[in-house]
């Protein structure tokens, strides 16, 4: 393929040198898919929000209602506030953890990062369900409080609880986005600052922090955008005043059948996300999202100077504080505090997930932690219920189908982009990242509208298409990184050594990229396996997936069967996750250029 590209580039009279069109053709299937199932339905949704359902005339009534005060405006502002709080907490709580990880040796970092990746891959549903059980009136936290002599408090249905659980859900994302940027910061820069007279505090504030800012900003962007579209946490743990926009969409469309209003709120959500992206692009440049350096920031004089100024001031301040502290306590090394903090956060991330295992084996009729007695009866219930077994099998099948289609589209597109230098490539990249920006609930609602016209509602195919749209960006990013790291001169070397193109692929290319391909496959499967929103709308109440079945049960009645189902989810996620880690290419293979 690459040779073909090079030949055509040579054969054409070079109008624009270096443009290899042929490789870029490979992105076409994915682009068509996203135009059909993301852009077109979103556009339709926009039209719906602007049309009076009875007369068909253009109108802005739905949008004016959103801003007219009352419940919509309140929800809009509380959505923003909760998302903002979540983002800030994720960054402040996650930064030290990422910093601690970045300073471990590569081998230990890989081990420690497992403890962050595992909660990252565990579904939001399971994590929030755990807090619902823990924080309830008879939950373990209240028991602890009681044992310490406090009166049991109402921990659920509080704004703080919503923010806490959302931070808990998205902290792993923030850490995993910040970590690569921190890993790229050369240790020698801090040493250089040291020899130039900078104390430890100065080194951090003047050198390390500014260099890690692109990662912080990327984490902030992704967390904020995900938080905007959240509905699981506020539904399960929030009170009436903590309602968020996504919940309103569900009510408008699934209960009131008010498409115009639902579509208008969805449009608001997308607009908010787009504005956020726009601001991010103006300050940092979107290319930093895929690990590029922040040109934009460096040439954006005002932002840069403000940042450096703050770093300067904080450096001096902390320097003075650190000197005072070490004079007071005589302590020189506070490294253990960072490690202790990191392990504490990791414990908070992991414990709720692992707590399901004992709860699922309870002998009592109620979910509680710790379980009063042990038995297998709830697993029996799970295995005997055609509802649970059916939905589990369906989720599996849909996951496999989604993963296959996603891998195919993403591989073609990533290969095409990695091998072409066309400017159109940038546009294609943006399009493939768009499903990350559009909240899943908007994707689901717009596909619901589209599929209603195509009789794809309540079909497995409909759900598979929806899941593929949602799974594409991450699989694409994984594969793009794989192909970009891949040293194509190896192919040329193999060819000069006498290997035919197909043998080059089998003997050289494939062994080196298979780790990335497998990671893409598992990523897509896991995202599909844990996706709730698509099935909520497109399943039509008939095609129930495992997350949908869990969601219905949580809302209806909380039984230990749910814990058994959660254990099934966690076990499958863990198994795939460890498989993926096992197949991950070793560092020396990736960076041997």
């Amino acid at each position, binding site marked *: 393929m690459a040779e073909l590209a090079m030949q055509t580039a040579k054969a054409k009279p070079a109008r624009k040198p270096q443009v290899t069109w042929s490789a870029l053709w490979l992105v076409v299937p994915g682009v068509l898919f996203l135009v059909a199932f993301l852009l077109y339905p979103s556009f339709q949704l926009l039209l719906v929000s602007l049309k009076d359902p009875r007369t068909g005339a253009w109108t802005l009534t739905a949008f004016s209602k959103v801003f007219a005060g009352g419940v919509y405006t309140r929800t809009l502002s509380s959505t923003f506030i909760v998302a903002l709080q979540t983002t800030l907490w994720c960054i402040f709580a996650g930064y030290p953890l990422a910093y601690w990880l970045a300073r471990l040796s590569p081998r230990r970092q890989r081990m420690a990062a497992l403890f962050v990746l595992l909660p990252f891959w565990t579904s939001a549903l399971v994590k929030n369900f755990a807090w619902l059980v823990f924080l309830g009136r008879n939950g373990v936290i209240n028991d602890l409080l009681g044992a310490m002599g406090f009166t049991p408090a109402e921990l659920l249905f509080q704004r703080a609880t919503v923010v806490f659980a959302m931070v808990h859900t998205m902290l792993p994302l923030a850490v995993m986005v910040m970590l690569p940027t921190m890993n790229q910061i*050369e240790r*020698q*820069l801090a*040493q*250089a*600052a*040291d*020899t*130039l*007279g*900078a*104390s430890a505090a*100065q080194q951090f504030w*003047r*050198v390390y922090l*500014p*260099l890690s800012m692109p990662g912080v900003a990327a984490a902030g962007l992704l967390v904020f955008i995900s938080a905007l579209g959240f509905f699981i946490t506020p539904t399960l743990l929030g009170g009436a005043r903590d309602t968020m926009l996504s919940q309103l969409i569900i009510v408008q469309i699934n209960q009131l059948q008010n498409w115009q209003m639902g579509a208008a709120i969805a449009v608001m959500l997308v607009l908010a996300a787009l504005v956020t992206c726009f601001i991010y692009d103006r300050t940092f440049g979107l290319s930093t999202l895929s690990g590029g*350096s922040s040109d934009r920031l*460096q040439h954006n004089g005002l932002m840069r100077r403000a940042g*450096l100024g703050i770093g*300067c001031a904080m450096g001096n301040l902390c320097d003075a504080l650190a000197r005072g502290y070490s004079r007071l306590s005589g302590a020189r090394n506070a490294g253990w505090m960072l490690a202790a903090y990191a392990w504490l956060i990791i414990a908070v991330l992991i414990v709720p997930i692992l707590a399901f295992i004992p709860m699922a084996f309870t002998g009592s009729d109620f979910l509680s932690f710790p379980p009063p007695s042990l038995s297998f009866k709830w697993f029996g219930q799970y295995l005997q219920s055609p509802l649970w077994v059916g939905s589990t099998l369906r989720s599996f099948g849909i996951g496999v189908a989604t993963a296959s289609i996603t891998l195919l589209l993403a591989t073609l597109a990533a290969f095409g982009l990695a091998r072409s230098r066309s400017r159109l490539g940038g546009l294609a990249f943006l399009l493939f990242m768009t499903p990350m920006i559009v909240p899943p609930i908007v994707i689901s609602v717009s596909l619901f509208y589209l599929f209603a016209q195509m009789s794809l509602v309540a079909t497995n195919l409909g759900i598979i298409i929806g899941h593929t749209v949602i799974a594409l960006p991450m699989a694409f990013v994984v594969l793009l990184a794989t192909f970009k790291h891949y040293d194509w001169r190896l192919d040329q070397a193999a060819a000069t050594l006498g290997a035919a193109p197909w043998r080059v692929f089998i003997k050289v290319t494939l062994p080196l990229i298979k780790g990335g391909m497998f990671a893409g496959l598992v990523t897509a499967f896991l995202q599909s396996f844990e996706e709730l929103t698509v099935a909520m709308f497109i399943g039509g109440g008939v095609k129930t997936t495992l997350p949908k079945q869990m969601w219905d049960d949580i809302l209806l009645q909380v039984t230990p069967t749910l814990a058994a189902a959660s254990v099934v989810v966690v076990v499958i996620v863990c198994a795939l996750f460890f498989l993926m880690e096992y197949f991950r290419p070793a560092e020396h293979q990736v960076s041997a250029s």
Partner: protein
Amino acid sequence: MSTLTHLAATSPDQGRAHNPNAQGAPIKLRVEGLGKRYGNIDALHALDLDVRSGELLTLLGASGSGKTTLLQIISGLVAPSSGRIVIDGRDQTHAPAHQRDIGVVFQNYALFPHLTVSQNVGFALDMRGVSRAESRRRINEALAMVGLEAMHQRFPRELSGGQQQRVALARCFIYKPSLILMDEPLSALDRKLRETMQMEIKRLHRETGSTIIFVTHDQDEALALSDRICMMHNGRIEQIDTPQAMYERPSTVAVARFIGISNVLEGTVMQGDQLATADATVALPKGHGCQPGTPGALVIRPEHLNVVAADHGALRGTVVEAVYAGVETRIVVRLASGNLIVVRRLSGQAPLGIGSVVGLEWPAHPPHFLSV
């Protein structure tokens, strides 16, 4: 090599015009019994080293000989396992790097990518609380010194390798640290640029009168730059001497082999100032002071050897290679024992065919004797 001829004309100390009495200059750095263990490898074995004020000392040695480790311990970035570091008479063994008043030029420059050239160069002044106006003046001065005034607003990655190197030098020289450490600062540059930068460093050293420890694994660089060379091997100091002394009178076989191409004949000392080697018995210079029966080695420089007819000369061998190098041709002769001897000949002379049998002699220059 021009340094060599220059030095050869005068005594080593007079050769350093900028620093006429380095011998009498106060000691800037004293390293006492310095050792470093990594796990069960000894990276450094109890080193002792004095560096005088205003001196340019190079640490020369093969990769893995402990040069970086020594430099990092002096700079305070790595703690020693044993021994002391004294700078300007003060024990600094346990002082953190930022309190030592040393400057380091790193191999890959370690310029801060988020700061402009000016901000990089002014970083140390910032840390020392120098006023803004004073700072600006000194930055301009430092940039002028390395010829980069026009680049002050650029970011490091907008500069070429040589320019980045100059920024790194300016960043180091600007605050006049009492001791400057450079770890293979030129190894990433191509040959031409490397020679230019060597001149630049010599000039900066002369103009500022600073004390510099310069690490390199390139013997030509060490010979060209140094007031003294400290030759390291497997975590030990093999020899500390002026470039000329080290070139002409290496103290060990390892030094002889490392500094330039040297031919080494090993054998046993015999009665009557003779050395019995595997190939022939050759005469030793008078006054070598070795008892008969002890092992010894002769070091013969390639430029001191003459090719003569096969039955003349002290050694006899077969020509196996001839490498043309412009003004001279290097002939490789294999002796009967398999030992390879390199001879430098001016290129104008009659060519020698590969396979021809020749004799070798060293008429004018007595070889250097080493007791092993």
